[in-house]
Structures are given as C-alpha cells and as structure tokens.
C-alpha cells in the first residue's frame, strides 16, 4: 500500500500514532506527482521547498508532544484562482501569468493555521470560466480515468490531482458547478458550500454573488473534516454569514431512516444520459433500502436556470474583470501610445477567448437599452428559483439528482458544440442561483467513466447532505475505485 493512495483521515491517524512522519507523507505524494504528472497535468506550480519547510515544522511540533488538528501535515492542492502569499496565482490567464499575491486568501490562512501543507497550485479554465479546463492559457489537464478526455472544469486541475492521488485533498471554486462537475467526471467527492459560509476574501472574483470556495475529497469523512476548517465568518467579505457552525463530523455514521428525499423530475428529463439517470436512481434505491422516504417532485422553474446563470454571472464578470487594465498589476502590453491603447491592448492580449466572450455578454446585458429585458428579469427569476427550493426544503431534507447530464467529454468536443457546454449546466447552476449547498458523490461508472450523484439541501443544511452521503458511501464502494495510471 502506497501512502499517497490513502485518505486524509487514514493518513492523519498514521501520523497521530507515530507510524509515519509528515515528511514521509510529503515524500510519497511528491514521488507520485513525479510519476504521473506528465500524463495528467494537474498542476501549474509546485511549491516543494515551502512544503518541506512546513512538514519539518509539523514533525518537530509533533515530536514535542503538541496535539495537532486533523489537517496538520496533510498535503493540499489549491486552485490557482485562490490567492497564496508569495506563490504565483495566475487564474490560468496570461493576464496574471507573473502575479504573486502579497496576501493569503481567508481559506489559505485557515489551512495554514491548521497545519495543512500547500504542495502546489492547480490548473483551471481561465478565471474559472469553462467546463473542461481547456480554456487554460497554459496547458490542458487530462482525466485520470481516460487520458483522452477532459477532467471537467473549471476546477479540473484540483479534481484530477485528487483523483490521481497527487494530493489528499484540494480546494476549488464553484460558480455554476465548477467543483461538482469535475468531481463527478473524476470520480471523487466535491462540495459546494452555502453561499456566504466560506469567505471569498482572496478568491479572484468571477461572479461575486455566485462564487464559493469548496473542497475536493477522497471520501465523505474527509469532506466533513475539511469543511470544519473552511467555514466561518470573515469581516473582509461583506457577504460572509455571521454564523457559528456545528462540527460536521457529528453528521457522520448516522442512521438515515425516515429522512425525506425529493427527486426533482426536471433533473432527470430529456438531455440526461439514460445510463447516468439509471445509476443515480440505483443510488437512490440504496438510500431507500436504508429507510429513507423517496418521492418524485417538480421544480418547474429549473428550465430558466441556464439563462439566469449566464446573464447574471457575465454581468458580474464584466464588472469584476474591469480591474485588469494593465496599470497596477497583471499583464501590460508592450505596444501603446496613450492610456486608452494601454487599456485596450493589455486587455485584448491578456484575456483569452472565453473570458472575452463572457465580458461581452455582460456588457450587452447591462447597457441601458437591454438592462430591463435581460439583467433585471434574470434577477427576478433568480428569486423565483430560490423560493421554489425553499418550498421544496420545507418538505424534504435533501434533493437528489445527477451531478451532470453527461460523462467526461473528449478534448475539443465542448468547443465544437455550444449546447453541450452551456445547456449541460442544467443540474448544477440552479444550486448557485439559490445559494444552497450541494455535494457530488461517486455513484457508479458509465462506459468505464465515473458518474456523480448530486445531493442538495437548504441553505446551512450541510449536515443533512453529509449524513445521506456518508450512509450511501458506507453501503457502496464506488469511492474506493481508482483509475489505473
């Protein structure tokens, strides 16, 4: 058994009882990276020197008899749109190719305080805009289950790193499915928290009212452990919820007898791969056999979610990305006569195609003649979608759906077919629109490729998701399957 293939909680226990040191764990994971990274391409930056420094200090503290938390000495990979002090944070964009943040994101401060070891920064679709990580300005990342296919996106590097055992866990960001979709495609657990539960301070903003940072994990127990460290109020994010959070580990190993599960029929409709539908329904059967009550329900506003998502997020991106002007930091063009040309040339040369596309969508929907038709109506429909979820959660503890309508696509397939890329968001974007939490958990394989089941709950209903997911995992073994690399 290689150390790198263990879970976070297994490695934590081995370090706690003195079987292995943090340095040995790090040796194992960097050796694994050396072996498979050429094939996968999950990382944009490796931080080896820094990582060994931290590992040695953790080992020293442990030797002194200090009691350390769950994450002490655990190697973690971080999506490259989360600011890390002194470590390049590129957003996979030429615009930020050489940008080194002078500060840590809130979640990075928390991970460092907990003794987790940042081993590298992972690839993504430029500024987190995309579904396949193919929009990275620097490289593509391959799906560990099939090297001819995408890992999903936008957090494709973070998902592939965990699936290929190149990290024990990782951080991603989820604006419309960017954690859950790649988690599904790579066969691991991915979690999108309640909006406001995890501070966005230091996350390079794409769409501020949708973005949330969350984890990729090897199993549900690991996920619960990580959430404990990410959640919490932060005064530097004005949308951070001033709330206290329970210990999510308390939701593990619970009986789900009597829990109410709703299956929104719109998430199982036309456009969902029939094999995926069957695998998710088989998963639901497992839960039913454990005593959960299952009912089909209807969320009729689901069909409006994709336009709501693209209109509002593009408008927010238009505004957020206005800061990249070639003046204070980031890419500056070599060719300019005056300030106007400095702006235009820096932005045109620094941003990639998809980012420009989203900026243009946002520009269009925000002009005074289009605002009411597009933006204002989308803001209204967002409220209706949230209300519909609120009503459903008055009756049901969790809702279950496929995480994504299709399995991992081949390279190039999504850019050739607009409707595959955009319309496939139907299962993931409503969750961000409503600001609720959701997990993707492996529930089987279709043609050898992993499939994810999405479990959603009301805002702050994380414990119910963990309860159901952990019950599912204890009674299945999909999370134990590994790609052969």
């Amino acid at each position: 058994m290689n150390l790198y293939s263990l879970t976070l909680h297994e490695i934590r226990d081995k370090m706690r009882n003195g079987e292995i040191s943090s340095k040995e764990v790090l040796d194992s994971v960097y050796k694994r990276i050396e072996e498979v990274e050429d094939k996968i391409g999950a990382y944009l930056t490796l931080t080896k020197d820094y990582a060994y420094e931290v590992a040695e200090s953790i080992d020293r503290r442990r030797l002194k008899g200090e009691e350390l938390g769950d994450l002490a000495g655990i190697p973690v990979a971080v999506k490259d749109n989360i600011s890390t002090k002194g470590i390049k944070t590129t957003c996979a964009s030429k615009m930020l190719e050489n940008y080194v943040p002078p500060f840590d994101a809130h979640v990075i401060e928390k991970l460092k305080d907990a003794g987790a070891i940042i081993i590298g920064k992972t690839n993504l679709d430029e500024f987190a805009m995309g579904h396949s990580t193919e929009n990275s300005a620097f490289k593509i990342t391959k799906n560990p289950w099939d090297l001819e296919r995408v890992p999903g996106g936008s957090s494709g590097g973070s998902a592939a790193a965990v699936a290929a055992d190149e990290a024990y866990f990782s951080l991603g960001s989820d604006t419309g499915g960017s954690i859950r979709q790649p988690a599904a495609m790579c066969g691991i657990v991915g979690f999108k928290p309640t909006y406001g539960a995890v501070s966005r301070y230091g996350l390079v903003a794409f769409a501020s009212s949708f973005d949330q940072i969350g984890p990729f994990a090897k199993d549900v127990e690991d996920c619960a452990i990580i959430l404990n460290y990410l959640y919490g109020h932060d005064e530097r994010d004005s949308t951070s919820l001033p709330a206290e959070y329970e210990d999510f580990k308390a939701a593990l190993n619970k009986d789900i007898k009597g829990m109410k599960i709703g299956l929104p029929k719109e998430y199982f409709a036309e456009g969902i791969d029939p094999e995926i539908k069957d695998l998710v329904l088989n998963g639901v059967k497992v839960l039913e056999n454990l005593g959960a009550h299952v009912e089909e329900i209807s969320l009729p506003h689901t069909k409006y979610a994709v336009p709501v998502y693209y209109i509002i997020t593009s408008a927010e991106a238009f505004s957020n990305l206005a800061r990249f002007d070639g003046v204070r930091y980031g890419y500056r063009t070599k060719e300019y006569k005056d300030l106007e040309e400095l702006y235009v040339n820096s932005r045109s040369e620094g941003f990639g195609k998809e980012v420009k596309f989203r900026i243009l969508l946002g520009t269009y929907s925000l002009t005074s003649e289009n605002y009411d038709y597009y933006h204002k109506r989308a803001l209204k429909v967002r409220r209706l979608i949230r209300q519909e979820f609120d009503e459903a959660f008055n009756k049901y503890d969790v809702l279950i759906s496929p995480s994504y309508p299709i399995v991992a696509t081949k390279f190039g397939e999504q850019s050739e077919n607009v409707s595959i890329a955009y319309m496939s968001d139907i299962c993931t974007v409503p969750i961000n629109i409503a600001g609720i939490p959701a997990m993707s958990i492996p529930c089987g394989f279709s043609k050898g490729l992993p499939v994810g089941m999405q479990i959603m709950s009301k805002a702050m209903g994380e414990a119910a998701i963990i309860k159901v997911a952990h019950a599912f995992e204890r009674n299945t073994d999909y999370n134990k399957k590994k790609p052969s690399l």
Partner: protein
Amino acid sequence: MVEKNELLKMASIAKLKMTEEEAETIVKKFNVVLGTASLFNELDLEDVEPSYNINSVTNVMREDIPKESFEREIMLANAPEKLYGCIKVSKIIE
C-alpha cells in the same frame, strides 16, 4: 437577434479589440446563449422583486478601525512598470 455591429460596439465599451472576423465567429454563440432569455416571456414577473443578493444578510460592515496596510514596496511588487516609487503610466494631460 444581436448583430455583428452591436458586438463590435460592446467590445469597444469593454475596452477590447475585436476584428469583424472575430465578431463573425462568436455572434452565433452569442445569440444562442442570450436567446435563451426569451424563456422568461412565459413568466409573470410584474410583482417580483429583483434579487440583488442571495442570502438574507448583505453588506455586513466591519468596524471602521484604521490599521496598517501594505508597505509601498509590497504594493508595487506586481506593477508592470515603475518609476520613482510610483506606478508608471502614459501622460494623460496635454
């Protein structure tokens, strides 16, 4: 339907360069994505309040207490061009 010329106008508002050919290649995708907004026509939105944020708490302000910020050198470390401890830009006044 959005026309190619409108796209070019949007690009200039967003301070992006775009050739006619580039506009040509994305105008179809642009219309596919924006076209889905016509679905909203089925809904009666007259009395629905727009949602500017999604959780009940917005703009949670911290106490306004002054504190140390970054040193000048740290702030300037990422500036693409520097001069005399400042960020260098083109002359904007004739």
